[in-house]
């Protein structure tokens, strides 16, 4: 177990190194003098000179990368040219908002996809199966920011039940927070439930044809116990790993959803940064997102290992 954990952790290192190179390399795409561009609207010679020195622009590229990496490893992601705040601080401020959105969306996604996956696997070829598959296909095809707009049109503009925007911190007022979060979380949740449902269905169908399920049926257990107790537990293990990959969709989707519902998370942070030419913030958000995504996948791998006794004793 411990050895597996260490091995998995070590295998992450090269990926992280390449991710950092990729994100550092983004800077090279900027046309012209990076210091001048990074200075943004404030084109004072002092600032440009300061940035040039800070970015070690007189040094060759590999040397600059190591200076940058050294900063990143010490938690220095640069500072925002707009607010002069450290990028890490800005991101840490916004991260809880996006984390809440992601968590609620995951919850809604699982609540939809797992029952739908089970039903369509247990009753293949029926109305329920076709319904669940049609749902999955539309879920994969619909642009979710549009779904968000349609929900605002229905629930905010027409019916007036939910606010179209206006994020409130859950520590301030939980009820208002949930009222503002339910639509965005639903939009994002349905987005991932399409893929999760397909995984649950195929994994469940595989498990249901296993010998031990036949044994469970043969000894006279009710179908309900066989499906929910014997089959489901094993069917869900691959769904954990595959589901973790959907976290990327969730993080990408959060950018758009936050834009539609005006939620001040890091999705809004990166978009505002893009338009303010606040490139250090853009790089910082990509770096943090990628790291979070890699770590969540690592956790999913470990969970898979823990939940799967066959691997544990091997």
């Amino acid at each position, binding site marked *: 177990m411990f050895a597996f954990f260490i091995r998995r952790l070590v295998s992450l290192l*090269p*990926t*992280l*190194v*390449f*991710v950092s*190179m*990729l*994100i550092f390399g*983004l*800077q090279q*795409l*900027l*046309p012209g003098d990076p210091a001048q561009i990074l200075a943004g609207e404030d084109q004072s010679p002092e600032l440009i000179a300061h940035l040039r020195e800070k970015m070690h622009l007189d040094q060759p590229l590999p040397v600059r990368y190591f200076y940058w990496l050294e900063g990143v490893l010490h938690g220095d992601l640069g500072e925002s040219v707009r607010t002069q705040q450290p990028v890490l601080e800005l991101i840490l401020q916004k991260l809880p908002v996006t984390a809440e959105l992601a968590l609620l969306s995951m919850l809604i996604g699982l609540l939809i996809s797992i029952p739908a996956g089970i039903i369509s696997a247990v009753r293949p070829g029926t109305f329920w199966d076709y319904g669940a598959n049609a749902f999955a*296909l*539309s879920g*994969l*095809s*619909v*642009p979710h*920011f*549009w779904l968000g*707009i*349609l929900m*605002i*049109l229905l629930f905010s*503009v027409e019916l007036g039940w939910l606010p*179209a925007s206006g994020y409130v911190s859950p520590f301030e007022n939980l009820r208002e927070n949930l009222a503002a979060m339910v639509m965005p979380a639903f939009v994002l949740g349905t987005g991932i439930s399409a893929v999760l449902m397909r995984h649950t269905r195929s994994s469940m169908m595989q498990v249901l044809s296993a010998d031990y399920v036949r044994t469970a049926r043969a000894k006279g257990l009710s179908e309900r116990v066989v499906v929910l107790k014997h089959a489901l537990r094993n069917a869900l293990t691959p769904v954990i790993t595959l589901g973790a990959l959907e976290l*990327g*969709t969730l*993080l*990408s*989707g959060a*950018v*758009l959803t936050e*834009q*539609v519902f005006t939620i001040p998370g890091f999705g809004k942070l*990166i*978009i505002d*940064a*893009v*338009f303010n030419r606040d*490139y250090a913030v*853009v*790089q910082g*958000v*990509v770096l943090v*997102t*990628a790291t979070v*995504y*890699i770590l969540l996948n690592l956790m999913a791998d470990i969970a898979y290992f823990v939940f799967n006794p066959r691997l544990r004793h091997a």
Partner: protein
Amino acid sequence: MSHAKPMTTSTATTLAAQSGSRVEYGPWLRAWKKLSRNRMALAGLYIILFFIFLAIFAPWVSPDDPLATNWGAIRKPPGMEHWFGTDELGRDVLSRVIWGARASLLAGIVSVAISLVLGILIGMLAGYFGGIVDALICRMTDAFLACPFLILAIALAAFLGPNLTNAMIAIGVSAAPIFVRLTRAQVLNVKVEDYIEAARAIGCSPMRIAQSHLLPNITPPLIVQSTLAIASAVIAEASLSFLGLGQQPPEPSWGSMLNTAKNFMEDAPWMAVWPGLAIFVLVLAFNLLGDGLRDALDPRSR
């Protein structure tokens, strides 16, 4: 849909004719026959052809100039004169949706072409040479895949500058790793076959082996993946344009139309309905065709 029948047969003949020269005649015709029995996949194909028709013949098909503003007809609801209504500058929404098909289809096809070229080249290098080249390429692919697709595309588009061309490059580069992995895996499968060994024994260069022995064998899964990738590229382009990083106004694009519509939801909800519906239908069509192609081209399900 009276024109549908002849179109099917002609596509079949071209498909067969194309494959006749290099690849065996059999598998492609068999795949087409299987595909033509799949009603959902055919529906997808017809919808795509319909959108391609709209995109090519937009100047003749659209009732109005998509850029012509009309201060006398601002935010008019759908009616006889403007079937889909008008927008905040009095432009005809139907015409803009028709012209918007150009940006979406162009973005879908060009960005997937970029992914394909990058993916096939790099994937073949990794799969064919193995060793350190393979290890390096795999780590780099992992790094790309570790950045969520749209966030990477946003960052690339931001650093390259916001316009449609850069959005297509950003989407194409962000989606390339999947094609690298797919090509590499296929090459690893095929490379151990006897006929590759034979080709090497008679002195074929790696380039020639790649061209005439590897490529034809890895084509079917690449076709399936490309079709599905166009679906996500269309959504990605709409997303980038929605965020202001793709097609720039006033040029019509479904994503940027939705971005504007967001500000007029109370007085002009129709502005938000049609462009979104167009994205949904086009993406659904590519997904249906992709699923159908997967079934048709899978040799195991003969």
